[in-house]
């Protein structure tokens, strides 16, 4: 399985333009208004990114550098989950920006967050992330071994917590005394993590690899590994949220500002559907002999080398043909392999085998 890009909103943010007035004597972040830059703010980092099902929004909590006092600003950005369009931005408080670590959607369509200010995982209101009395919480530091998560997916229906502290995805069964079910190494440093369902979750790494895990089975397992479309080497981070209404992934790609200071971040939407990246050359896997049958194997693969199936790969010999192609087409196996048989003629010869596949996604932009 690979990811099929549906649409990209680029840029997804617009900065406030500088009014041209310099403030004396105290000025902050003068680099913001140093030509050719023309905006008096710039995105610094993103604390949280998640899908909020109640309002059908994608929500991002961001810290900005500003030219004005006090040199920084904290905003909650709301985007339409359907179109990716900017809806509004609101001031975010210190709890969301400093105390809460990384928030995401979990069971019962609630938002849960890990904390910088403690080792607990809290249920929290989406619009402030300030947990209140009576809201669910749990402390992984009380488990054996003591655990601190920076990212967590909460499945209260099945009493499962999947979390990441550093390089491994851990799955804990909290139905009784918490028990660690598995530790699975991540392909790279985590960018963000998102709940999909009681069974599955998604992770994205800081270099744009996207992986899906089934965390409910015991032992848990990775189900796919793919990547965002055209991962850019200049990207500072990637964050992922899962839109449970449309069953698709939203990826926030944080990129450095353009030369004039304008934002280049983008929101990308993906469906977990086939996307073919390439077809390898047909390679002989049996010896090449006159009068003998020769087996060739090629692979149809996705962005991260994942086998793409089921597709039909067509084979044709280029003129002049001396031997005989016995398998004019073949279906791909789960690993994307397609095999072809060729009957060599009695005398030595040079032949060319050409392969092709017709790729259809069958999906329309929602």
């Amino acid at each position, binding site marked *: 399985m690979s990811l099929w890009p549906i649409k990209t909103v680029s840029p997804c943010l617009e900065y406030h333009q500088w009014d041209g007035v310099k403030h004396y004597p105290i000025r902050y972040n003068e680099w913001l208004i140093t030509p050719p830059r023309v905006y008096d703010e710039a995105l610094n980092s993103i604390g949280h990114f998640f899908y909020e099902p109640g309002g059908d929004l994608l929500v991002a909590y961001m810290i900005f550098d500003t030219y004005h006092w006090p040199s920084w600003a904290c905003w909650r950005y709301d985007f339409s989950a359907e179109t990716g369009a900017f809806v509004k931005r609101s001031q975010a408080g210190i709890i969301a920006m400093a105390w809460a670590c990384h928030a995401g959607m979990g069971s019962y369509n609630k938002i849960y967050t890990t904390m910088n200010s403690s080792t607990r995982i809290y249920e929290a209101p989406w619009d402030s992330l300030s947990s209140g009395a009576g809201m669910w919480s749990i402390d992984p530091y009380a488990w054996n071994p003591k655990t601190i998560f920076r990212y967590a997916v909460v499945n209260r229906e099945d009493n499962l917590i999947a979390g990441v502290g550093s390089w491994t995805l851990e799955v804990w069964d909290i139905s009784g005394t918490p028990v660690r079910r598995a530790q699975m190494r991540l392909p790279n440093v985590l960018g963000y993590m998102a709940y999909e369902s009681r069974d599955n979750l998604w992770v994205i790494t800081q270099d744009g690899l996207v992986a899906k895990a089934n965390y409910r089975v015991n032992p848990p397992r990775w189900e796919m590994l793919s990547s965002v479309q055209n991962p850019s080497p200049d990207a500072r981070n990637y964050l992922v949220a899962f839109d449970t209404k449309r069953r698709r992934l939203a990826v926030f790609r944080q990129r450095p500002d353009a030369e004039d200071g304008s934002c280049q971040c983008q929101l990308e939407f993906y469906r977990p559907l086939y996307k073919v990246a390439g077809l390898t050359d047909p390679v002989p896997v049996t010896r090449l002999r006159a009068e003998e049958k020769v087996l060739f194997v090629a692979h149809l693969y996705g962005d991260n*080398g994942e086998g793409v199936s089921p597709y039909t790969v067509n084979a044709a010999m280029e003129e002049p043909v001396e031997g005989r192609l016995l398998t004019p087409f073949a279906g791909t196996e789960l690993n994307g392999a397609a095999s072809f048989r060729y009957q060599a003629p009695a005398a030595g010869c040079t032949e060319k085998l050409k392969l092709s596949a017709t790729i259809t996604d069958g999906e329309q932009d929602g």
Partner: protein
Amino acid sequence: MLELIYTSNRTFNIYSGFAPFHLGYLRSWDAMALFGYQKLDKLFRDGSQANLGVANTYLSMGNRVGGRHFWFSGSDFLAADEITGQYHYSEILNPGWKPPVGTWRAGDYLDDVAGLFLHSKTSGKIEVFRLADGVKLGEILDPGGPYYDNLAYAGQGKIVAFHHGTGKLALVDYLNRTVILKSKVNPCWRSAFDCLHNLVITIQSDRKVRLYTLTPVPAVLSPPAFIPAAPHQHRLLGGRVQTRLTGDQGEPCAGWWVHWSLKGLPAKGYLLKERSKTDADGYAENFYFGPAAVGEMGNETIQVKVVV
């Protein structure tokens, strides 16, 4: 020397100037895991590659039964995930035995079905341990053999042991602890064995993938000899004559057509067949009948040749 059947046109990227740590063929991928200094990649036979993230270079990669791989953490053999290629900390394949230093090496082999661990110990010696408790069950000896770098799964109870510096390799039956075949390929950086198609895979510093069949290229065709030795042949009684085709390492070449002829002009006597195929041990045979004319005597030479 094994028969080279394919060299990729594409060159793969290693992201650094150093040879990758390990190359392993994964049966479920029908492709290789390339464990480099900076990245972990999936490598196809034609040299196409896809990045799967980064690997932990503090760990070593080994080969596992069935065309899989595992990671060695220094004390634990960790099962590898076949989607990401990374390891699962919680899936330890050696819960009852923590191998001490000197009993493991990158490229060693683990058969958790038969409960065995194979370690390339020194030149021409592979040690066999019981995985459950580390008891040494025996050794596979290859006198004069090299210090094998990689022990790759080749089929039920078999591995191919590679020495990269010389390209020497041995097909080993590790259940019976015998060496079945010895041959070589070109010296290489890293090696793997495609257990699905029985192919030796190597990568070299030109960053191309090479495929070899497990059949040696013929190098030596022995002079035909009568079996049993019989210098005088009569016209009515055919003499059984045999030749043997071998590679440059003395390995038998099976399935090759040997063409037979008589050198004399005119020929004295005749051969039963014009060509015959070598058997699994590289032998091909024919029958020679002496001259048909009564009282005809003389010498005759039997010629054999193979078209490679």
